[in-house]
């Protein structure tokens, strides 16, 4: 279940748990736990990275205090007919080392997933993010896994290319 602290995860490692409807992600960052926490909790920073390239993220409501709630829209780029997808949830726990967040896609408000983000200091200014998404059924978990099937696989790399070109990395 949990791995040792030894392997490095410069790239996201994903595990779809066979026994519980959950997805685990591990990823190392050149940042402190406090910065990572801030990037998840400060809405102005959050919108800069959370959505795929094809959408603009607009925060409608955001109260990142324990028991506060949030709601944001992913607005598809590309003019007319661009769809809007709303996501919402609450922040049951918020701290520098750990964030517990509920999450749902608004058309399916009863299908709530529980997201736990833990930030572990690796020393030398590096921090490991453990993200654990627990869904309410295997079906919901698999839908979450499948939700990007029809978006371009290379989209993420294009976005990265843009960042590289701008010298942002």
């Amino acid at each position: 279940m949990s791995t040792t602290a030894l392997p490095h995860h410069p790239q996201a490692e994903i595990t779809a748990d066979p026994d519980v409807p959950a997805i685990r992600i591990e990823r190392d960052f050149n940042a402190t736990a406090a910065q990572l926490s801030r990037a998840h909790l400060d809405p102005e920073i959050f919108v800069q990275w959370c959505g795929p390239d094809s959408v603009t993220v607009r925060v409608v409501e955001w109260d990142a205090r324990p028991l506060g709630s949030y709601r944001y829209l992913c607005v598809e780029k590309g003019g007319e007919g661009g769809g809007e997808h709303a996501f919402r949830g609450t922040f049951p726990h918020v701290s520098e080392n750990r964030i517990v967040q509920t999450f749902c896609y608004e058309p399916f408000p009863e299908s709530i997933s529980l997201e736990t983000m833990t930030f572990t200091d690796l020393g030398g200014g590096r921090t490991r993010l453990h993200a654990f998404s627990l869904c309410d059924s295997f079906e919901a978990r698999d839908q979450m896994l499948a939700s990007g099937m029809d978006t371009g696989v290379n989209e993420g790399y294009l976005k990265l290319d843009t960042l590289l070109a701008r010298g942002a990395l």
Partner: protein
Amino acid sequence: MTDALSRAFSALADPTRRDMVARLTEGDQTLSELAEPYDVSLQAVSKHLKVLETAGLVTRSREAQRRPVHLEADVFDLMTKWIERYRDRAEARYQRLDAVLARLEDLDPDAPHDTHEGAAS
């Protein structure tokens, strides 16, 4: 495509079926061979087998008398690809976060190597 994968994933949501699949990775087996370790009726095992067959995870040859059950490796490749894509999207998201964090450090000179200073304000 997504439906097929969805069926495959939900077929594997059951521990007995996962165990059957794990044993089939070592080679084809007949229904009675598959049923042997379990404390359930042959009928129950046959039901599990139907679910795996419908999901395309296993096939049974019509010709041979023993009708051995065969694992379809291709479906597992698809499932792996599915998870890969999810991973790619997560990685893309975190690369955007990398870029954002790099900008934060520029704005906040205390932050990079001094873990306890960053949160002040």
